[in-house]
C-alpha cells in the first residue's frame, strides 16, 4: 500500500479537470500508468471512496473531488 500513490492520484483527480474527465470516461485507461497495487486499483475503478479512505486516502480529498466526492 502506498499512501503517496493513492493521495497523489486523489490530488490529481481534484485539481486536474482534464485528467478527471479522462478518468470519468475510461477509468482503466486513465489509471494504466498509475503506481497502484491491486486493491488500490480496484477501489479507484469502483470509485469506492470509502475503500480508498481505508487504504490511506486522505479524508478531505475523498470528500471534495468534484463528481466523485463522498459526503
Amino acid at each position, binding site marked *: 500500500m502506498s499512501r503517496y500513490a493513492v493521495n497523489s492520484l486523489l*490530488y490529481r483527480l481534484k485539481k486536474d479537470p482534464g485528467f478527471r474527465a479522462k478518468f470519468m470516461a475510461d477509468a482503466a485507461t486513465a489509471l494504466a500508468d498509475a503506481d497502484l497495487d491491486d486493491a488500490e486499483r480496484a477501489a479507484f475503478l469502483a470509485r469506492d471512496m470509502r475503500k480508498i479512505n*481505508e487504504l490511506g486516502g*486522505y*479524508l478531505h480529498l475523498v*470528500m*471534495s*473531488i468534484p463528481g466523485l466526492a463522498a*459526503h
Partner: protein
Amino acid sequence: MGKIVFAGAMSHVLDPDYYQRACGALGRRTVEECMREIAAMGERFSATKADALIVVADDHLNAFSFNAVPALCVRIGRHVQRMSQDHAEAFDKVLDHMPERYALHEGLANAILERGVERGFDLALSWEAPVDHAFLSPVNTMHGTRPIPPLVPIWVNCFVAPQPTARRCFAFGQHIARVVAESAWTVGIIATGGLSHFPELSLPRVGETDTVFDRRLVHWMETGEHEPLLGLTGDELHKAGEHEFLNWMVLIGAVTPARADVRYFGELPRINMAAVEWRLG
C-alpha cells in the same frame, strides 16, 4: 513597541448551505449562530485598527499537493490568491463568493520568518500557495463589507502525519508574540478550525464528535491552564478529531497566559462549532 491587540479562534466552514445539507435545519441554525458571534468578534477586532491580521490555519490538501508538506509555513509576498477549484464541492464551495485577492503584511511575515531562523524555527515559506476556506471563511465572516487589513497567513500541517507537536506549535506562537513585541505594529491573530470532527480522518466516522474532549480543551483555555495543553499527543488529537487544534495551540502560545472567553459552542453530529476570544491585557 508592537502588541497583539486581538486574539480569537473559531470554526472555519462558515457556510449555512453546507450545514443544511450535512445536518439539516439544526446545522443551518447552529452555524448561523456561530457566524453571528464571529462577526461580532470581527467588529471588536476592526475597532482596534490593527496593522495586520495573522491567520493560523491548515491546508486541506489544496495548496501543497504531495511534493512537499511543510510542518509550519509562512506565506510571504504582497498578495495572496483565494484557492480556485472547478466544480467545487462540500467545504470548498464556501469560497465561491469570496474576493479573489488579499493584501499581505510583508514586513511582519518576513520578520516571523527571518527571526525564526535565528531562534530555532526553520520555517517553510511560500510565495505562491493560495489560501482555502480555513483562512478566508473566518476572515470574511469577521469583516463583512469592512476593509480587511493585510494578512499574514501561516499554515500548520494538521493532517499529514507526522504533524508538529502541540508543544512545538505553542512554542511557535511564543516566537510570533516576541516578533510582534519587537515590531512597530499592532496585530490581531486568529486560529481556525475545529472543534472535534472527523475522528481518525475516517469516512465511516464522519458524523461523530468528542464533546467531552472539547469541554476539557475549553476548560483549560478559559482558566488559562496551558500546561495540560502542551502534553496533548498527536494520537489523542487524531482519535478525538481535534487535528485542527494545533492551529489553536499556536495562538495560545502567542497570548499565554491569557484566559479565553467562549463566545459560542454548539454541538452538531458532524462537528462541534466554536468561537473563542482571549482577554488581552
